[in-house]
């Protein structure tokens, strides 16, 4: 039998080794991309047009913004309203509510390639929307819907019941209570969820290749194909001719993702503070 002291040391080493490995992975992925990518960042990469001589990432950047905006435009109201129904209106033992919860959970587990394939079969082929900005955005909005619903639900739950009781007591109706009393303190939480889903949209590739396509131009209409930054990066690295530019694109993606994380953490912190105030 090993002595307790030896065992303790062994466990400690094991735990620290795992932790250091995790941190080392993060540092080496981020560090490597930055190290290889930053020297390749140039103003040329942000020129208006994508050509074979200059694989500008500017159109893809604009497309990413368009895609994000459009997906949120579809998914955010749906997700927020659905969460409002679940938290503020429905009774929990309701069969309908259970079904909504199960399907939402299912949606959040479906891999993006299945969304991509479904989007291709449904939006692109069956509805005839072609490989386009719109098909891509519709596909992505299905993908981020559960995320927005869950975070909104959590944010609404965090608002103390007394707020609602007070508002009803003063004679306000349900809607007024919802928009004037319950929503305002929940907004940072809802925003944190929306920011997280922006992160998912920005990083998505598999769901977009066959729904939004890979045309590296800014689309003239909703029904034109548009590649986002991640798809752009995938295209560059699979063509194998523009590895340096792929590094640079990765840097831009990393910067966006880090920014999104910081924003979401900030928003989450605000809701923490607000709800604590409510409880004091």
């Amino acid at each position: 039998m090993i002595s307790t002291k030896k065992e303790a040391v062994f466990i400690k080493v094991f735990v620290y080794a795992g932790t250091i490995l995790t941190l080392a992975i993060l540092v080496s992925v981020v560090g490597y991309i930055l190290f290889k990518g930053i020297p390749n960042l140039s103003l040329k990469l942000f020129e208006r047009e994508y050509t074979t001589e200059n694989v500008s990432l500017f159109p893809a950047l604009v497309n990413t913004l368009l895609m994000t905006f459009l997906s949120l435009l579809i998914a955010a109201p749906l997700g927020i309203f659905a969460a409002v129904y679940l938290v503020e209106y429905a009774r929990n033992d309701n069969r309908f509510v259970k079904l909504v919860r199960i399907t939402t959970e299912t949606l959040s587990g479906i891999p993006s390639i299945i969304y991509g394939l479904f989007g291709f079969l449904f939006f692109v082929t069956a509805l005839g929307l072609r490989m386009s900005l719109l098909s891509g955005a519709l596909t992505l909005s299905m993908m981020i819907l559960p995320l927005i619903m869950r975070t909104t639900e959590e944010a609404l739950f965090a608002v103390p019941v007394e707020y609602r009781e007070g508002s009803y007591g003063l004679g306000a109706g349900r809607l007024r209570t919802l928009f004037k009393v319950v929503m305002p303190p929940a907004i940072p939480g809802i925003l944190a969820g929306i920011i997280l889903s922006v992160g998912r949209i920005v990083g998505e590739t598999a769901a977009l290749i066959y729904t939004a396509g890979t045309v590296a131009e800014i689309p003239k209409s909703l029904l034109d194909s548009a590649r986002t930054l991640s798809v752009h990066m995938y295209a560059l690295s699979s063509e194998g001719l523009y590895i340096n530019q792929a590094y640079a694109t990765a840097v831009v993606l990393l910067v966006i993702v880090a920014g999104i994380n910081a924003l979401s953490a900030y928003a989450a912190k605000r809701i923490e503070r607000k709800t604590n105030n409510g409880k004091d």
Partner: protein
Amino acid sequence: MNKQEFRRYPATVIPKRKSVQRMNMRQLKENGAKIIFILAACVSILAVALICIFLFANGIPGMAKIGVFKFLTGRVWKPGNDIYGILPMILGSVYVTAGALVIGVPTGITTAVFMSRFASKRIAKIMKHAVSLLAGIPSVVYGFFGLTVVVPLVRDLFGGSGTSILSASIVLGIMILPTIISISEPALNAVPNAYYEGALVLGATHERAVFKVILPAAKSGVMAGVVLGVGRAIGEAMAVMMVAGNQPRMPKGLLQGVRTLTGNIVMEMGYAADLHREALIATAVVLFVFILIINMLFSVLKRRTKV
């Protein structure tokens, strides 16, 4: 949560007719809003229904034409000759996922243990940000990192082409880390302190208390994290495709190239037609069924943590 039914004032309190009209308008608005909220809640049911219908309706007939048994256990995938067997891809997905677990699970769980029971509050907070950054990095970036770092490394160390089960396992192992950590850390935190203190009183060291008492108590939460990691690994497409080699043949060794279910869809969907296309959709059906089973397992485990 305790929800209070709102009760309106009795009508007698309101004297003027105009107010009564306003009341009706308000009633209308309230009901209208409620209907909109309900409709929004229906969207996720609709979405799941549509996904199931379109996948199954497009995939099952193809599978039937090929022969379900032949499709699932066939060892040869040659669309040119109309031979569709996806056993190599099923095994490919299983192998790379298993490899990812070998790498990701010990690393992820020890990191979660560190964050929950070893680190100071400040360090734990910093690490939380680090983990969410790790979670936020897009899969193409991981794939690209794998392609430019892991693949050459494997090639130099072990020979072969480098695009292999091993490379795919390493990249996936990295990618499931944040999933495992972010689910198991709260589970570890949720174990009552009395457990830990009890173990200390009985003479256990800090380390022993954590590993023999707290970790077992948080078992279902940690398992839920692992199961979710399996779901992520098996469903990941781009990163795996970039490092796995994608040869549609029976995988024989760690250093051989392999094609996963996801890779099969992404590789060939762009140009497939007719039966070939249906076979690819059927591949997605198989993947979808895998995912559904994993999801069910996850929600069972999660429910158990809550109790």
